């Protein structure tokens, strides 16, 4: 069944929109804002707020009834491809698969200096009560911190005989994160280890659906939990038998 946004009643379609136009506040600017709203599919759009910003910009808040609808049942929703496992289970899988500790290498790469997200996944303390990968007895975690170049990371992956490489990317302006993630993938390919590692990326503005286009085994987004990452790693080595690496 098709649904539309719910403002105050079923199917009223009401949505709120705000944007700035590079126009001085004027009737023409209003008309332009309404025209854009119509193009977005807002029926009977109302400009409820217009604020001049300096003398060549105008900020608008609008409400309107969206003409578009969507049938949620027809949408492809990614089922999480791996099962969530308890730590003991994860450790057991690793032991069985690798017969040694799994080596997990993590870094925030390129010019990105953010480490809180990476540490949330790696460090013993973890995130929101969920312990990090360091707490798994069958993992050996090497946290390289931030601002690590793709080359250094690839070199360390070889040196440490890494089973998994975890890349954190927080800064997204001008698509910096995509560029940095690609650099790591290319460096791993160039050094011939891409197929020997599970390659995982993460950051608040990434979503799992980007895994394929980025050539990663898995991308994690906002609010990712260490236990999810650990479960994925266990599932991945089990299902793909990377123990040969």
């Amino acid at each position, binding site marked *: 069944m098709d649904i539309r946004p*719910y*403002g*105050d*009643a*079923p199917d009223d379609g*009401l949505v*709120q929109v705000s944007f700035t136009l590079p126009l001085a506040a004027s009737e023409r600017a209003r008309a332009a804002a309404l025209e854009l709203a119509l193009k977005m599919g807002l029926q009977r759009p*109302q*400009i*409820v*707020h217009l*604020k001049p910003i300096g003398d060549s910009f105008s900020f608008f*808040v609008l*409400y309107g009834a969206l003409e578009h609808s969507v049938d949620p049942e027809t949408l492809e929703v990614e089922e999480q491809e791996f099962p969530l496992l308890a730590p003991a289970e994860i450790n057991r899988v690793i032991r069985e698969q690798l017969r040694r500790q799994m080596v997990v290498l993590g870094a925030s790469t390129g010019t990105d200096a953010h480490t809180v997200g990476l540490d949330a996944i790696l460090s013993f303390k973890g995130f929101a009560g969920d312990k990090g990968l360091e707490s798994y007895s069958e993992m050996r975690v090497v946290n390289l911190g931030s601002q690590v170049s793709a080359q250094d990371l690839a070199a360390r992956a070889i040196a440490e005989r890494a089973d998994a490489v975890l890349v954190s990317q927080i800064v997204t302006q001008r698509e910096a994160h995509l560029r940095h993630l690609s650099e790591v993938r290319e460096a791993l390919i160039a050094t011939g280890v891409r197929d020997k590692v599970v390659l995982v990326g993460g950051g608040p503005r990434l979503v799992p659906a980007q895994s394929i286009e980025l050539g990663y085994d898995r991308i994690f987004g906002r609010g990712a939990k260490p236990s999810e990452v650990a479960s994925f790693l266990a599932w991945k080595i089990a299902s793909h038998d990377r123990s040969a690496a």
Partner: protein
Amino acid sequence: MRKPPFTRPVGRLHLDASSIAECRALAAEIAEPLNELARTHTTKSIERAVLRLIGVDGVSPGADGPIPVPNLVVDAIEQSVGLGRGALVPLLHAVETGCGHIQSEAKAIADGATPVVWPDGVELEIAVTRARAEADLAEQRIRAAAAQRDRLIAEVGEAPKPWFYLIVATGNIHDDIPQAQAAARNGCDIIAVIRSTGQSLLDYVPFGATTEGYAGTYATQENFRLMRSALDEVGAEVGRYIRLTNYASGLCMPEMAALAAMERLDMMLNDCMYGIIFRDINMQRTFIDQHFSRMIHALAGIVINTGEDNYLTTADAVDSAHTVLASHFLNERLGLNAGLKEDQLGLGHAFEINPELPDQVLMEIAHAQLIRECFPNHPLKWMPPTKHMTGNVFQGFLYDGMFNLVGALTGQDIILLGMMTEGIHTPFLSDRDLALENADYVFGAAGGLGSEVAYAPGGFIERRAAEVLEECRQMLTKIADVGMFDAIEAGMFGDTSRARDGGRGLDGVIPRERGYLNSIEDRLGDALGIA
């Protein structure tokens, strides 16, 4: 919910206690003639309320749609034996001489099948006896609902104060319900279903579940029942008894009170002047109606909310701040006179000053704290910004937050949560949810300031509060001088002038004649000790 322990900070402003006492004395003086008016008059709505309380209900078909039986009965009595002696006796006489069943005989009168007769002698005595018996039943019914409230609160749990109060207003009771439940699940303690525009001008209460209100949902007994049970359901789920509010206001004020009492509503907007000023309802009608309504609320354990905040939508919030306080003293006195206890007097306020004025927040604090200190035992209702809310929803969200903060600082009991879209439309589901997040944050994070903060002695806040109190004292002195009717005619409240014989509903005011009987009023008066 992360509300810190609730306290009502007092003694912060070093107010002049004798000035406050003088205001109370003046309010009592002003209220006396209004009391007398109520004692000597009845209204059509009072009589209909009485009939409803003894079980008259339902509608009969009419030319322009169904007409409530209580209206038809009262009109039939008016047109036959007159209303000056009340509606109870003629109806119950018909009942006693007829089949004995109230609703059947009421229907018969409504449909013109049974003529209205004023009984004499023994028949009168029989009718009066029945009236007293019915009054006992009505009292029991009201008390039972109140007891049921207490039981449920004990069972599911009481919400910690301050109570977060939200409005639903879709116009359709079936849309209101899921919205109210969603709000309760996310932290709301009180749901008010606001009424359709125009309902307050209807001289009858619509019937049944309704789906077609404008900017509000019709208040009907069935809608009350549906919402009450939906809130009981969600209350059990969330472990907090969720209060329900509606409006005992407009031409049917007493009937709304009766329905609220029977359907276990918990709070009612019930102001002695709102209808006069903002709906142009006749002032005599209103003062008479409010008295009986409040007696019902008193016994029902319903907390009333007054609406002084509204004055400052038509008058200036700085210049007229004292009118709010003056009206509070009047609403308090009239409430106490009708048997309400202090803890049922949810005086409503907020002094919404233009946010562009310097020191706006300091003035808000001064005013709010002043009310807190003048009414230390009253469950005050703190209102959000409305008039100065624009289409800038972001800035509006902040204004709401600052009002929440002032409410927290000054220990207000009931917090009506502001809507960021107040300047635009009746609230969206999401507006309400965001408002709850706002309040949850402000009260959780800053609520403790109430017991932590003191204001500079002789500082801006203290001086401003003293000034408003003094202006209030002067205003009450003047009103005591000219009387309430003149004061309203002079536009002293809300900058709006109303004539004593103007507005709607004066035709429904009837002087009580010798032989007038309202056994329910008598019963309530006894029970409340205000005979």
